[in-house]
């Protein structure tokens, strides 16, 4: 842009701080957590394609979302469990966008100052979303909180804890729950093309008896946004499932921004001593119990879902095994790119052509995406940091790595001194896909809906919990004995099986005394 800059110094300072913070954490995640590979899916090629799609499309799509609902309002709803907060919000959305930007800089197709207003907007959106979603623990990321993720308010945690059925290794419920979580995780990896985007863990939360609770989310399970789940997932009646898992004898010392955990000693299925099951989506007011009427019903529900996931896994695997490489590339890229698509669902502005197409500007690069180039380029982008844009003065020492490198290039302040820049990459361009057309069927908590009807219902949905938006945990601490606090808690407890109507003054000792049968 030539002329008076539209960005302020303060905006650039904050944006570059977010970029640098994000650089440090992304490097740590990429080099210490896991290596994602597959003989089935061309994973590095689809990742690179997704990064470009994110660079070209996210700014416009996020502005479209915010034309209806602000990032912080969406974060508030995510905190209340609608829809499940994805690791998208912790890392993926800015991560994919910035990796696309970095790659384009290294190909000479972008200067660090180009799309400056997009970068500032996207990082600001992410900050507002994260701060509202993480409001209860007061941090932007899990990393900032020492790799911990305490999102939920006390009233929700009390319901999860008191609802949970106790179980021990060897009993029918324990066996059914662990089997369900294995098959749901496996189905999730396949649905999301070898990524963990369908899976998320949050917590831990400390329980009165010294145990800890981890909340496990399984997402995008039914016929929804992914065309490859049409028919295959017709029998799956829930698009999202949540399992609060009560665990003894191990401390979860790490829950990262990819939604995975570490514990000491190592977590094993035998450590599980209590479980519950819930569903949620943009049309539910909080978490709705699933099969929680009795221990026997919950056991049977886990068994039934386990069987359904196994059957759906086999059907989906056969479909994927018949795909071309381009179809695999599209599905993987769209899964990655779509990591923040639920933002559009919560706002009621989801469109298949926005989220499930490869933008023609990204599509151009497909001929480059052979396995070797993609593997090496990805490795240099996220782990080795050996591309030219990563290199800094020899005095520099990167956090975690000590080398003179940095993963994401800041916006140069020189644009405030007259250096020209182009503010935005422009609107969404036409896109395409080699995948089958999506059937107009979307599994929701209100049944299978057309997309138009789904969006309409979401836009008209006004959950009661929105009334309590600003009644935070600090307010509750000093006002738990007021009628308003009691109303908020009683609303939360309406579907609880043991603490219905108990209100806001329920304490830890009373809760711990409730039998888990």
């Amino acid at each position, binding site marked *: 842009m*030539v002329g008076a800059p539209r960005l302020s110094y303060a905006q650039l300072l904050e944006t570059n701080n977010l970029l640098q913070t994000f650089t440090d954490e992304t490097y740590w995640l990429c080099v*210490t*957590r*896991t*290596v*994602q*590979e*597959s*003989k*089935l*899916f*061309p*994973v590095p090629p689809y990742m690179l394609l997704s990064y470009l799609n994110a660079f070209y499309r996210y700014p416009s799509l996020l502005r479209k979302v915010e034309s209806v609902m602000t990032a912080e309002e969406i974060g508030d709803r995510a905190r209340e469990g609608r829809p499940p907060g994805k690791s998208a919000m912790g890392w993926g959305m800015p991560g994919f966008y910035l990796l696309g930007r970095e790659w384009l*800089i*290294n*190909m*000479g*197709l972008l200067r*660090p100052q*180009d*799309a400056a207003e997009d970068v500032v907007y996207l990082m600001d959106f992410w900050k507002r979303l994260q701060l509202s979603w993480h409001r209860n623990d007061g941090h932007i990321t899990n990393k900032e909180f020492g790799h911990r993720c305490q999102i939920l308010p006390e009233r929700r945690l009390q319901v999860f804890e008191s609802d949970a059925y106790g179980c021990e290794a060897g009993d029918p419920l324990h066996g059914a729950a662990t089997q369900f979580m*294995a098959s749901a*995780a*496996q189905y999730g*990896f*396949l649905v999301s093309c*070898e990524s*963990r985007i369908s899976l998320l863990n949050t917590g831990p939360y400390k329980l009165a008896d010294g145990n800890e609770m981890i909340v496990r989310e399984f997402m995008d399970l039914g016929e929804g946004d992914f065309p490859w789940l049409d028919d295959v997932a017709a029998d799956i009646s829930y698009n999202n499932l949540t399992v609060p898992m009560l665990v003894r004898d191990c401390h979860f010392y790490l829950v990262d921004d990819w939604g995975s955990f*570490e514990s000491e000693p*190592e977590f*094993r*299925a035998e450590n599980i001593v209590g479980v519950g099951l819930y569903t949620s989506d943009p049309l539910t007011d909080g978490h709705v119990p699933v099969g929680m009427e009795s221990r026997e019903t919950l056991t049977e529900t886990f068994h039934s879902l386990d069987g359904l996931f196994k059957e759906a*896994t*086999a059907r989906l*695997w*056969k479909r994927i095994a018949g*795909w*071309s*490489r381009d179809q*695999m590339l599209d599905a993987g890229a769209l899964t990655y790119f779509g990591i923040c698509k639920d933002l559009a669902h919560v706002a009621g502005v989801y469109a298949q052509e926005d989220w499930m197409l490869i933008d023609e500007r990204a599509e*151009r690069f*497909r001929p*480059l995406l*052979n*396995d*070797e*180039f993609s*593997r*090496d380029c990805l490795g*240099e982008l996220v782990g*080795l940091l050996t*591309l*030219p*844009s990563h*290199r800094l*003065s020899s005095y520099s020492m990167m956090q975690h790595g000590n080398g003179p490198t940095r993963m994401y290039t800041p916006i140069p302040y020189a644009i405030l001194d007259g250096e*020209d820049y*182009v503010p*935005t*990459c422009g609107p969404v361009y036409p896109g395409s896909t080699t995948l089958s057309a999506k059937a107009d069927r979307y599994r929701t908590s209100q049944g299978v809906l057309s997309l138009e009807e789904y969006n309409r219902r979401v836009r008209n949905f006004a959950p009661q919990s929105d009334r309590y938006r600003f009644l935070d945990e600090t307010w509750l601490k000093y006002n738990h004995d007021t009628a308003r606090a009691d109303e908020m808690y009683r609303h939360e407890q309406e579907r609880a099986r043991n603490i219905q109507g108990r209100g806001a003054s329920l304490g830890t000792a009373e809760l711990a005394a409730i039998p888990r049968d």
Partner: protein
Amino acid sequence: MAKLYVDSDKYGDQANSPTVEAFHSAIKDLVRRRLDESGVDWNSFVFDKSYDLITAADFAEIEKKLLDAGHRYDFSAVISVNERPEAYKPAEGILGDDPDWTMEHPDAPSGDADAEGRALCGVGDNVMRVAESTVGTARYVRSSSQVMRYLTDGVPPETIAIIDDSGGTLTAPILEQFAGIICMGGTVRSHLGILSREYGIPCFMNAKITGIREGQRVEMETAAAAKTAEAYQKGEEMTANIWKLAQEAS
């Protein structure tokens, strides 16, 4: 010739990987050329004219030049080499139809048979400690056609799958039927490691093996300690053994 903004980089020079550098250099040359030919300035080019001036055909040409020079790509997904065998290095042993083929790791330990007839033939990172060793029949599972065959006919009992893919999708519909897993890549935190732990299937990740033929009886030292996150962070070796059972060799 036009000069790109990134041409004046005080600290950076080129990519580490020859393939990445070859592509990136060619793309930067292309951009310089198109800027010269079209006469457009950068601000018109970057988010407007470049979409027409830098095309998929250009990128295809860049890729072709590397192949024309004799280069053949490493593959990671089997479908890549199946669809373009002329562009990739050959995929040996991928179909599992050669009974003499063995996966060889240069750092795999080996040894003579001990008093019990067990010969050391590899090590791996144990995902989950169980009470006893795991004994079974080694079978390579490396392609979707093999998985489809097992999905149709069933996985033979006591199969210890040898997999060179730490992902959780290739073997998704048959994973639960394995008696054990020896995976040549990843860590205990890889998707395959996570799933094997969830299912309670004995599993070694990051395995280094030698001389295991299809159908060989093997023993995994699954009673060994599971490799910890701390061991990975400190770079400490913490491996469990794999033995061939000579008396039962097929």
